[in-house]
């Protein structure tokens, strides 16, 4: 459909309006129109036309800066990411349930996980994906070193920290294969930056 699906130069699917920074991003307008129709609940020509009009008006009234997000949509990768997240949510949920009803106190830990990709979008998407899975919550993100700091609920087990770190990296890889550019995927395919896990200074 557009450059979203392939590695092509960004903004090959946008219209420049006038001389200023006003750029009509066609994928964004399509997405806003879809939301408009879903919120109305009925698909009709009237809703479709109104949706396009409202989307164009919103884009003109509140112009977004022309930033190349580096977003690609890879349907197969998105399916795999979704399946993995669902599986992870269920299996971690069982673990958290066990911790909720455990009698003896557990010990939490804050673990640094350096990521391999450097793009802002990959960092954000990985953090959001990890945050939605029970058992690890993100308390800090360092953009310069692309490090996320994870609060692990039950760190008594020596393998827990390692497995939390592995799971973040697995999520990162799947996120890059779902939304990343070819460069992101190449970065993620490399081995983990430091197996020891000490945060780089």
């Amino acid at each position, binding site marked *: 459909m557009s450059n979203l699906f392939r590695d092509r130069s960004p903004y090959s699917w946008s219209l420049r309006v006038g001389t200023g920074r006003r750029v009509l991003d066609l994928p964004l307008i399509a997405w806003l129109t879809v939301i408009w129709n879903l919120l109305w609940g009925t698909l009709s020509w009237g809703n479709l036309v109104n949706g396009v009009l409202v989307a164009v008006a919103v884009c003109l009234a509140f112009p977004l800066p022309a930033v190349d997000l580096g977003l690609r949509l890879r349907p197969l990768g998105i399916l795999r990411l979704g399946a993995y997240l669902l599986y992870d949510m269920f299996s971690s949920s069982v673990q*958290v349930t066990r911790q909720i009803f455990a009698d003896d106190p557990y010990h939490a830990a*804050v673990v640094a996980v350096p990521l391999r990709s450097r793009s802002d979008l990959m960092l954000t998407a990985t953090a959001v994906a990890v945050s939605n899975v029970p058992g690890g919550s993100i308390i800090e993100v360092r953009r310069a070193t692309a490090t996320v700091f994870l609060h692990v609920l039950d760190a008594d087990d020596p393998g827990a920290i390692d497995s939390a770190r592995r799971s973040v990296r697995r999520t990162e890889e799947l996120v890059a294969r779902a939304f990343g550019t070819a460069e992101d995927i190449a970065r993620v395919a490399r081995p983990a930056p430091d197996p020891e896990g000490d945060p780089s200074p």
Partner: protein
Amino acid sequence: MNAVDAVNAWAEAADLAGAFLLLLGCFQSLLGVIGMLRFPDVLSRSHAATKPQTLGLLLVLAGVALRLRDGIDLGTLALIAFFQFLTGPVASHLVARSAYRTGQTGSRGLLRDDLDPQLSDEDGR
């Protein structure tokens, strides 16, 4: 006649599965509340307050979808799931971040803390 029976059977099965998923989703959200009550400190509680609800909501939405079985309604439900998935982490991150920075990491302390040295470095500069 047979075809109508088969359609009815499928509809009934979908209704039943939907009801089961709704119940499962409610149970999952209840677990989150129990976790809120049982966990001692803010950071642990934020685990229980956000994530079981996300999964619970997904299950409830799936249950509702199985009972509604209508194209555009499924789209609206998917939209709810999408925005829940996108906005939940922002709120939970802000709570966790401020809890950590005000030292509310629990009375038993952390077994290991990779973040503290980095924050201390910044203060020293």
